[in-house]
């Protein structure tokens, strides 16, 4: 809480808005890392969030590492490393599985 304006000091990134408690926050971060792992692995990247610090670590296979604080920063960093954005509408994510 800011003493001058009466509002919290930082609004935080929008992706952190849904957590109701510290427990939700940690659980959300671990869940987020679980979701990110296969997505980024398909681009040769790995992500690590141990639930402590404020952000998470993005690394490629040659050992290039970068710390990011928010998901927006993560996607920007990933684009810098792989040369194009990670696109959820890329065919690797949207191709139809053989239907039964």
């Amino acid at each position, binding site marked *: 809480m800011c003493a001058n*304006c009466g509002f919290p000091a930082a609004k*935080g990134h929008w992706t952190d*808005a*849904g957590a109701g408690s510290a427990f*939700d926050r940690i659980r959300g971060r671990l869940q987020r890392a679980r979701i990110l792992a296969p997505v980024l692995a398909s681009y040769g990247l790995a992500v690590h969030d141990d639930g402590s610090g404020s952000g998470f670590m993005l690394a490629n296979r040659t050992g290039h590492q970068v710390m990011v604080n928010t998901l927006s920063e993560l*996607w920007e960093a990933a684009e810098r490393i792989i040369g194009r954005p*990670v696109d959820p509408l890329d065919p690797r994510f949207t191709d139809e599985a053989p239907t039964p």
Partner: protein
Amino acid sequence: MTNDPREGRMRLTILGGFLGSGKSTWLRHHLHHVLLQDALVVVNEAAIAPVDDALLIGSMRLRVLAGGCACCETRPALVTLLRDICDDRVGGDVSARRIDHIVLETSGLADPGRIVDAIVTDLVLQHHIVVGEIIVTVDALHGLAQIRDEDLGRRQIETADRLVVTKVDTAEPERLPRLIATLRILNPGATVSGSIMGSPADLPDASNVDPETLPTLGASAAPAPIGSAALDLGETPDWPALTVWLSALIHARGDDIVRIKGIVQTPRGRILLQSVRKVVQSPEILADEPTATDTRDGLLVLIGRRFTTGELVRSLNAFGIGGAVAIEAGVASAAGRPGHGDR
């Protein structure tokens, strides 16, 4: 802590629309309406000598920002002005404390999306202001020409939640349905209503009318048509997974996906998510019980180009959000969109 659904923030309604499209006339009429009666009105004019403020004398509280358009050259001045309003509300004049609603009438040259960007990226304003509705006026007589020739005219329409066709009585009878059909193609997610001198007016039926064929404009105008997708994410979608998916989508496709809006249950409660192009507003925590005007919980509406509803559903699945169901697919479909009071 969450008794106040907006967390104490003021609601900002943005009123945009092309030069001379009837913004001030519409606003003047609505200042006497209950919803806007207590609003503080901020008028931005690109011209150095303002004229719009004379039109708006009915407003008790009026601030004028003249001499440049607030989405680009006078953006810092807009931020300063809004910060002053926030200061007054928190610590200054007692009478100013009651301000709960600001209406910003943009200049006719403004892209409302960039105004949203100015507010949600400002470290002070994001704590004090929540962007509510974006209303865009469209001139019944000149609207079609502006949409055809001006990239800006299209951008204004694409960002709107509500489109108001003004001067309905001046349009040639056969042109008006064509304008309405074109608006529905450009922004299938917005409601479209008619107005004469600010009073509501009926619009003709445009369901069987062909829209105007729009030429490609410049480098920024995309040839692909705009469509919308409505997805039902279920009652309690996985919020962390959804944030991963949405943040990636907005980063990669923010120029194509013009608008995202939805209400999602999270551990913190129901939250209203919205984005305009690449900008996501700090989500608003809503009251626990839905109001009559809320979109349904778990409903996510995306408006933009170069995606299909099927792709979105499969992509959500790939990101660990199973169970998403397409409610209504369709590019350029105008009928029966859930969550909008479209008639």
